């Protein structure tokens, strides 16, 4: 269920439960399945219902945990499944430790008996604050929100920069995101086995090449022919469909992790607990944003980019090579998208449609912050990320994306140019 929800996928920090000691695959003649034991502090939990369905939402089977807390569901075919613990069927006083993790998506290989762990907690449990409000949770969700915001911000900045100089909304931006993630995966866990850092750099280089190729091979020729914006948008839609299906065909329909980044111990920073992974993502994303800001404000190329975004004709008449600037912005935009994809791939896993699912949130961030501005989208993404994550304290995780949309629509109604944008001119 949650798989379909872009917001949820982006946000849940370790949606993918990786068993600490993976059970050896059962003999293949017994087929495959998912199983587990529900326990709370070593006490078995019985009578809880567990539902298994396909990622598309087709129900497969349901079962109930036995007296020793054990449950298992055999599966006819291997593949991706969503396993959901029905929280309402847990005994009184027992709840999910993290209510966002009552529904897990797992990939079951042929012959594998996949062990699923649902972390349970006492309802009265870890809430330490006086009014019963869980401050630790608020803090940790805020950190999650910042991380999500940074990752989205990097992607959204790319989209907005490209829009700024070309006046084109690239609906294939999500596929540029996926491209970076997959390229890095190929070099980290696929055909090659580089450390992720190196593989990420290779992924960014390839992203740059893709940005270059799209502008030189597709969009520049189309602009030359004075193709209308509407037609160009349709082209980006076609490109998005094409690339996404191409990834599905070549990368495969199942999510894959990067090597070495599956499980991590949290570190304590006073009231904060963060995984080094989260911290790393936030730092890398922030550094990238600062670097782009530096590029825009302090270099000749950046000045030219801003000039073209501001007024193309004026820029051209003052001697700026507009076409070259556009090419550079496409490269920069693709690299930012690719970086966002890699960071997102570290957060969750790499998947052929991860960028497409993120696109909606990218759009929301860009509109909230200001389409065509460089920093607005980062601001919008951070706001959105924190609001989305913190809202899960009060609202079902399923509704996270509704807030993104609400923000988008309210912004369009009351301030369509976004927080940092300005109005278009007529005539």
């Amino acid at each position, binding site marked *: 269920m949650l798989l379909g929800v872009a917001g949820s996928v982006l946000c849940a920090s370790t949606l993918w439960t990786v068993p600490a000691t993976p059970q050896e695959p059962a003999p293949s003649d017994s087929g495959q399945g998912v199983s587990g034991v529900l326990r709370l502090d070593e006490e078995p939990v019985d009578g809880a219902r567990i539902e298994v369905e396909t990622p598309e939402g087709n129900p497969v089977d349901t079962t109930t945990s036995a007296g020793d807390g054990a449950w298992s569901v055999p599966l006819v075919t291997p593949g991706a499944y969503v396993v959901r613990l029905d929280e309402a069927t847990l005994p009184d006083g027992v709840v999910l430790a993290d209510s966002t993790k009552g529904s897990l998506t797992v990939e079951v290989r042929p012959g594998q008996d996949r062990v699923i762990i649902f972390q349970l907690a006492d309802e009265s449990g870890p809430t330490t604050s006086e009014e019963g409000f869980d401050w630790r949770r608020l803090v940790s969700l805020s950190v999650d929100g910042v991380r999500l915001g940074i990752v989205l911000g990097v992607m959204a900045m790319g989209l907005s920069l490209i829009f700024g100089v070309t006046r084109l909304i690239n609906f294939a931006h999500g596929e540029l995101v996926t491209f970076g993630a997959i390229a890095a995966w190929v070099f980290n866990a696929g055909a090659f086995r580089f450390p992720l850092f190196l593989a990420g750099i290779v992924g960014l280089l390839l992203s740059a090449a893709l940005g270059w190729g799209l502008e030189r091979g597709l969009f520049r020729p189309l602009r030359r022919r004075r193709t209308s914006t509407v037609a160009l948008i349709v082209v980006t839609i076609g490109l998005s469909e094409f690339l996404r299906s191409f990834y599905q065909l070549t990368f495969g329909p199942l999510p894959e992790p990067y090597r070495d980044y599956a499980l991590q111990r949290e570190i304590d920073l006073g009231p904060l607990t963060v995984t080094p992974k989260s911290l790393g993502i936030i730092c890398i994303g922030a550094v990238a944003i600062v670097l782009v800001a530096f590029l825009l404000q302090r270099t000749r190329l950046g000045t030219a980019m801003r000039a073209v975004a501001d007024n193309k*004709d004026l820029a051209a008449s003052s001697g700026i090579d507009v076409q070259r600037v556009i090419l550079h912005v496409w490269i920069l935009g693709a690299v930012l998208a690719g970086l966002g994809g890699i960071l997102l791939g570290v957060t969750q896993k790499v998947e052929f449609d991860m960028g497409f699912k993120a696109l909606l949130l990218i759009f929301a961030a860009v509109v909230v912050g200001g389409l065509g501005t460089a920093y607005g989208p980062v601001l919008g993404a951070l706001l959105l990320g924190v609001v989305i994550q913190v809202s899960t304290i009060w609202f079902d995780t399923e509704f996270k994306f509704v807030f993104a949309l609400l923000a988008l629509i309210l912004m369009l109604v009351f301030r369509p140019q976004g927080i940092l944008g300005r109005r278009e001119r007529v005539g």
Partner: protein
Amino acid sequence: MSTDVLAAVAAEPGVPKPNPILVVDDVRRTFGGLVAVDVRHLEVERGTITSLIGPNGAGKTTLFNCLTGFDRPQAGYWAFDGHRLEGRFAYQIPRYGLVRTFQLTKALDRLTVMENMLLASRGNRGERLLGALLRPSWRHTEDAARQRAERLLETFELTRMGHDLAGTLSGGQRKLLEMARALMTEPAAILLDEPMAGVNPRLRQTLCEHIEGLRDGGLTVFLIEHDMDVVMGISDWVVCMAEGNVISEGPPAVVRADPAVVDAYLGSHDGLAPVDERESHEDETS
């Protein structure tokens, strides 16, 4: 003719006119820190040709945009023919008899010339969704509009092109079409934004005659123009803007000699008659 009316009017910014059709007060439009328009008081005399000049970026187009609802000034009010128009939507303005054209010609390319004209007709019953399928209900207004369109096309020598797609017209013809189309709305005043830009000299002459013809027919014409020969030739009154302000107004010869005007143009490194061929602005408009 109407020059006589203005003969007694002093040549100073914001001066009242005997019978103004358009009165503008304290209109101010800023973009971030940039003050694009800051017009204290301006009146346009009924039945005259009034030209609005000023160096590039003076705020002329922005003023037109504000007056016709295409832009929202931060402050100010204005009245046309006794009706207050601030806060009105752009589509409501023509109902009061005020219509405009654009600096970058906006012909509707994949409609025929005749369709361009008919589209501008007022009160066409067939333009309502519910009536659209009942041809008899709108045939009458449509026929009347067609006759009016044919007369106008003839005046502007576009009759031959009636069935061509507007996109196939030359730049000058598109300017003519845009003007003729604006007139289909049966306006009392027309605001023309650089009607001569991109038009060849021979056609300029014709256009000037058309504009004078409109005035002689009782229409008020308020136009932005960079070509000083044109301005000097046809204007009854000239208003000059610089950096958002009206810095001078008066009869053509007076304004031309006004040191403030000369300064404004010199200050803008712009010469007095800038050749302004900017038909390739395609990205500016949405």
